[in-house]
Every structure is written in structure tokens, then in C-alpha cells.
């Protein structure tokens, strides 16, 4: 009886009694949701274009951040480092296309999936080999990212918003917007959507798959870099961040592997759900439920919409 109360009544009572805390939690959730969304976005881009479930996406985030910080540590000016890092991500895209995707074209999905595991290992190994495994501090100031926090007085309390988080939110939305534009307006973008439908279609558009793959992986790389910077700015940069890539996966179930808006909305839902769950229900289970709560949300959701948020109902043909 008491337990039921704790689960079904108490949390809501708390929410009502301290709305400012609720707002705070929501904000936290929103921000981490945005970051999840960004990672999911990377997944979606690649899956859409090359049908590859890129397990390495999370690592690419860390790798990008690490490169950036590492270069700076070696005395490279911040923005130059940023530029170089972007270059590195491009080279990575090239390498992946040439040495992984091209040889494995037409292989089963799971094989490509496995290949991205291999990629993960290589990135982790080389990343740590070059820049060392110890956690590093993100050079957010040097990149002119704001620090400090606004404290908003609302709902009879105070809600604190880290400036960096606001920046994150803004950058994320900018990025999504530009990607949307890219898909809608540019020729490659259109070709890319064609590929998502069928590879043959893409060829008919007259753009080589190889080219498209490079572009997509590069785009994913940029997204990863941005994500890396944001996340790095909030915590430290180390391969511990790897875990966040796994956090982003439920977002995919929610939003679907091929839907960009799905990724965004899904990310936010997960972010919010997670924080709220952790904050209000966590104590019951002895905290740390963050680790899996996202998945539970996703699964529960799935039972009602197997095709995901934006996936349309599939009519099976035989």
C-alpha cells in the first residue's frame, strides 16, 4: 500500500508542491535530451544513407572532442584546432568509405554493424594512443562558449540554467535546421533521400554511392564534433562518454532509425523522461535508474507503436 503510494501518488505530490524543482528538472532533461538527439541524429544520417547501424557514432563524438582538446593541448590555437578536427573527421569519413563500406557493399546489415564495432575499437585505441586516456577539460572558453549560469526566479523558486546548456540547445537547433535545409535544397541532399529509399534510385539520380557515403559520414562527423564539444563542456572528455552513445539508442527506437524529426523529438522525450524518472522515482529504486530508464520508456512505447514515432504503418506485401 505504502509502496503504491510512493510510486503513483507521492512523486506527483512533490511535483505540485515544488514546481520550481520540476521546472529545473524539465530543463535538465531538455538539455540532455538535445544532446541525445544530436547523437541520434548522427545515427539516423548514416542509417538513412548507407543502411549501416553505426555503432561507432558515440565513439566518434568522443574521438572528435578528444582530437580537438588534444590538439589544443599540443599548442594549436583553438579555432585552428577546430578546423583541423573537422578535417580529421573528413579524413575519417573518407577512410571509412574506402576501407569499410566499399569492400563490404551488399553485405548483410549485421556484418556492416559488426564492422562499425571494429571501427569503434580502432578509434578508441588510436584516440587514447595519441592523446592519452586521462580525462581532459573541454576548451569551451577558448571556443568562446559562454560559461556561468542564469538564475531565473520563477514559480516561487529559482531555476538555474547553465549558459553552456542554452548554447547547446541553440547550436543543436541550428544544426538541425541547416541539415534540414541541406536535405531539402541541395542536389546531394535530394540524392541522399533517394538513397534512403533505394540505392538504385540514387544511381539514377546520377550520384555515386561512394560520394554520398563520404558526405553522410562527414556530416555525421560534424554532428559528432558538436555533440562532443557540448557534452565535453558539461563533464570531462574521456571515453567514459562512450556510454552516452548507448544512451542515445532508445531515442532511435522511439524516433525510428530513419526519421530526423523523430530523432529530435525522441531525444527530448528520453531526456525529460530520464531526468524526471531519476529525480522523482529514482530514490525508490536506489538511484542510478538513469542507466536503463530510457530503455524502459522506449520499450513501453514500442508495445503501442511498433513502427516508432514517425514511422508509417507498414503494409506487408508478399
Amino acid at each position: 500500500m505504502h509502496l503504491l503510494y510512493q510510486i503513483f501518488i507521492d512523486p506527483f505530490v512533490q511535483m505540485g508542491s515544488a514546481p520550481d524543482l520540476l521546472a529545473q528538472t524539465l530543463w535538465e532533461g531538455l538539455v540532455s535530451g538535445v544532446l541525445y538527439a544530436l547523437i541520434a541524429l548522427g545515427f539516423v544520417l548514416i542509417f538513412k544513407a548507407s543502411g549501416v547501424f553505426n555503432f561507432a557514432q558515440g565513439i566518434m563524438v568522443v574521438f572528435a572532442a578528444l582530437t580537438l582538446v588534444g590538439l589544443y593541448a599540443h599548442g594549436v590555437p583553438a579555432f585552428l584546432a577546430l578546423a583541423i578536427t573537422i578535417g580529421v573527421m573528413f579524413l575519417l569519413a573518407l577512410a571509412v568509405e574506402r576501407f569499410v563500406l566499399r569492400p563490404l557493399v551488399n553485405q548483410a546489415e549485421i556484418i556492416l554493424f559488426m564492422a562499425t564495432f571494429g571501427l569503434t575499437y580502432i578509434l578508441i585505441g588510436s584516440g587514447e594512443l595519441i592523446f592519452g586516456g586521462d580525462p581532459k577539460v573541454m576548451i569551451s572558453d577558448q571556443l568562446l562558449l559562454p560559461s556561468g549560469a542564469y538564475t531565473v526566479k520563477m514559480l516561487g523558486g529559482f531555476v538555474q540554467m547553465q549558459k553552456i546548456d542554452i548554447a547547446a540547445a541553440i547550436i543543436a537547433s541550428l544544426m538541425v535546421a541547416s541539415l534540414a535545409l541541406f536535405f531539402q535544397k541541395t542536389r546531394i541532399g535530394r540524392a541522399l533521400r533517394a538513397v534512403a529509399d533505394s540505392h538504385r534510385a540514387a544511381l539514377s539520380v546520377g550520384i555515386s554511392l561512394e560520394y554520398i557515403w563520404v558526405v553522410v559520414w562527414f556530416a555525421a562527423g560534424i554532428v559528432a564534433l558538436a555533440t562532443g564539444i557540448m557534452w565535453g563542456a558539461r563533464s570531462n572528455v574521456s571515453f567514459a562518454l562512450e556510454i552516452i552513445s548507448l544512451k542515445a539508442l532508445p531515442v532511435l527506437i522511439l524516433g525510428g532509425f530513419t526519421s530526423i524529426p523523430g530523432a529530435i523529438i525522441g531525444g527530448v522525450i528520453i531526456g525529460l523522461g530520464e531526468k524526471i524518472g531519476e529525480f522523482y522515482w529514482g530514490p525508490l529504486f536506489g538511484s542510478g535508474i538513469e542507466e536503463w530508464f530510457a530503455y524502459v520508456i522506449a520499450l513501453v512505447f514500442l508495445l503501442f507503436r511498433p513502427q516508432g514515432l514517425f514511422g508509417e504503418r507498414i503494409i506487408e506485401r508478399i
Partner: protein
Amino acid sequence: MFYREAGQYKTSYRADQALFPIRQDQIGMLLILAIAFIGVPLTQSDFVIDSFITPILIFSLAAIGLNLLTGYTGLLSLGTGAFMGVGAFGCYKLTTFFPHVNIIVIIVCSGFLSAAAGIVFGLPSLRIKGFYLAVATLAAQFFLSWCFIRIPWLYNNNVSASIEVPERMMFGIPITGPTAAVTTRYLIVLSIVAVMTWLASNLIRGRIGRTWMAVRDMDIAAELIGIKLYQTKLMAFAVSSFYCGVAGAMLVFLYLGNAESESFNINQSFLVLFMVIIGGLGSLLGSFFGAALIYGLPIVLRMVKEGLGLAVTSATLEHINFITLGTLIILFLIAEPNGLARLWQIGKQKLRVWPFPY
């Protein structure tokens, strides 16, 4: 070349459907078993057995488990590690409750616990396929490993927050715990693995195996010939997790000797998945190859480095290992996406038609 099939004809379906229809294969199998049961204990040092053979056997069993699910039924799972964990912790609890029940029985029974877990986390497979399902199985992974940490009851609330394998006797010989001899543990592992592999081969060659493969190859058609998808999938999950559970229990009780939740984290899942893919989806034999390769590779790499006497910190060594492993995996996938089992198959076929090329 060594095959002499002329005159090996079958006069009954029973013989025609035997596990090894070709005499030369039967002989080969018997040889291998003889070597494993007699040769190895006599000739190999405890070091070799304990650091190579035993763990490889245990992981082979886990790989078989996952292979039944992913290779034969086509359901991708990333929760293997967790199911192994359920087996391990389950075994620990069971033997705590029933200290006098033979530990081998306990180990096998703990398989049922993970089978139950498997069914529960297999439920989403009724609605979703492919990578969606894979991600869903991650839920099992994270939730369960969370439990392993957060529920002290699982490790009897001891301070180390880990399983301490108690000593258990059989015929007055210690077979688990610090005092158990390497060879003893090896022989037990070997026996369990051998028997369970045989049982698995029976399953996949029979009705159940066929329904699994049917679902894998084309679930719609399978349903239209009267196969109940959910039953089939859930059974695959159950059996698969059972194997993983037993493997997990053996890993802790007959090999590691103690374990905390970390032993069953997501990396364990990926490791086993590698074994299955590299070994060959849909091949029991491949599971052994895969286990041997993936488990042995890092050790070999390390040895090579030491052999070369490279003056590198162990950290650097780790990194290099990571890179090499990653590269090898990609290279291998490119070279033979169908896994070691396929290579073996091709080789065997060549021998059968020798001297002809095909």
C-alpha cells in the same frame, strides 16, 4: 583427400540423418573428444588449460547460445552478457540456498533462471525486428547489470560487492572454489559443453531448429505454413539464454572463482557477438572457432609483443591491442563475411571431391 565415401550408403533415414553421416567425420570427432578428455589433461600445463582452453570452452557455449538466437532464428541480441550474469548470480544464490545440492546440478538449473529472463526480455521481439530488437535487448543488458550492482542480496550483501565462489565437493574432490584443481574444473566444463553442444545440434536438426531457421529466412512464409511466430521466437530466446546462463555460471564457478557485476557488462555481450559473427552465423562449430579466435587473439597479441620485447607501457599495449583487434575484425569481415565456419566448410568440400576442384 582423406574422405573415402564410395560405399558409404544409407539404408535408413535414421542413418541418413545422423549427426556425422560420413564415417571419416565420425572418426575425426572421436579423435577430437579423445584428445580433449585424455590428451589435453595429460599433456597440457595448468597454465595453458586455465588461461586458454577452459575459458574458450565456456565462451564457446555462450557463443552457441547467442548463435541459436541470432544465427539460427535471426534475432539480434546485445544482452548476452546480462543473461550470463543472471546465470552466474542465480547459481550463486541457488548454491547458497541449497549448499548440499551438487554444484553441477545447480549450474544447470541456473540456466533456467536466465531462460526465464530471456523470455521476459524477448517479449518485444513479437512486435519489433532487426536493430530495433537489438536495441531493445540492450534494455535487458542495462537493467540487469544495474540489478547486479544495486541489489546487494544478489551477492549475499558481502562487502566486496561480488560473488565469492564457495568450495563445493563432488565425490570428496573440490570442484569449485579456490582449492579446486585446474584439471578437475576443465573436465567438468568440457563435459558440460560437450553434452550441451550435442543437445543443441539435436535441436537445430529437428522440427524446432527448422522452425527457427524458417522464421529467420522469411517469417511471413513461416507463419503461412503454420509456424506460430511468437512461440518460436520466445523458445529461441529461452533456449539461447539458458545456454548463456549456464556459460555464465561456469565462467564464475569453474573459471574466474569470483566476479562482480562488471564481468557481465555490455562489453561481454559484444565479445560474444563477435565470436558468433567471426565464427559464422548459424554454425555450432563456428561458435567454437569464433570463441577461440576472439578470446585467444588478444592473448596472442600480447605474447607477440612480449616476444618482440617491445618496451611499451601496458596502457599503450592495450591501445595497440584495441587497434589491432578492430582492424582484424574489419579485415576478416571483408575477407569472409560468412565466418570461419564457411572457410572450414569450403576446405572440407575440397577434400571430399579431391583431386577434383569441385
